[in-house]
């Protein structure tokens, strides 16, 4: 499984990589903003994308909307400090499949990733 991590903080991307590594995921690409992420998606065709909200050049919510213009199926998990209900609703309406609020524990992030993938697998099987 190819996973793309989109966050302007390399520290956060490293933490996410560690969690993903513990879950057995090794094919991981990274992007530091929405513009880089769109290029990475076109090039590497990830199976899952984790997206931060507040980033330079193109923020995460804009990135989600751009992705959903052409790809309704790509699993997207927003991983962000934006915790207000209105933000969560906005992200869901934009098309994310799940939402993780920073700060997060490794266990929470792992659970959200596994839940997202399990739901999509179940939906695909029907």
């Amino acid at each position, binding site marked *: 499984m190819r996973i793309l991590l989109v966050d302007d903080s390399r*520290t956060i991307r490293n933490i996410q990589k560690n969690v993903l590594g513990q879950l057995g995921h090794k094919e991981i690409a990274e992007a530091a903003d929405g513009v880089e992420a769109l290029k990475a998606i076109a090039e590497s065709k990830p199976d899952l994308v984790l997206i931060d909200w*507040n980033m330079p050049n193109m923020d995460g919510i804009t990135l989600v909307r751009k992705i959903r213009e052409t790809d309704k199926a790509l699993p997207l998990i927003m991983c962000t*400090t934006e915790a207000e209900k209105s933000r969560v609703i906005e992200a869901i309406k934009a098309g994310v499949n799940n939402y993780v609020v*920073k700060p997060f524990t490794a266990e929470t992030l792992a659970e959200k990733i596994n839940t997202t993938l399990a739901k999509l697998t179940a939906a695909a099987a029907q």
Partner: protein
Amino acid sequence: MDVRFINPFIAAVKNVFNTMVTTQITVGKPYVINASQEPVADVSAVIGLSGDVVGCVVLSLPMQSAVNAASKFAGMELTPDNPDFADALGELANMVAGQAKSNFTGFNVSISLPSVIIGREHVVSQSRAKPRLALPCESALGTFHVEVVMVVNRPSAKQAPAAATV
């Protein structure tokens, strides 16, 4: 600064450091910064606030506390010359500001991307028109403080944050 906004910052500092740095933080009594007794820092991570509340949040640390916090957060030794050092501290400030503002119920607030200043014994000089509040913090990583300047720009028509106790 409206005291009702203090508790969210206290809670945010504790939660962010406990969750991401596995470090307990003891927050001392908040105090208004006196212009004649400016706290100095060696590293400051600055986040701007805009929207219904405008202002600034600054995570200010002496160098050793900053090295300890950044290194523990990143899971590896980080020194100030490493670009990940500023990144780690900026992200900690980002999470503190983000979590605090999410508890300003009914207020629509945006946060800026972090800026990190590294320089021995510097002062982050903000607008002196508004009171600046300092939250002194102690931990196994060392001491540091969180500085907050905030003004309600447009009181929300909805619920305000719960009353804070200091």
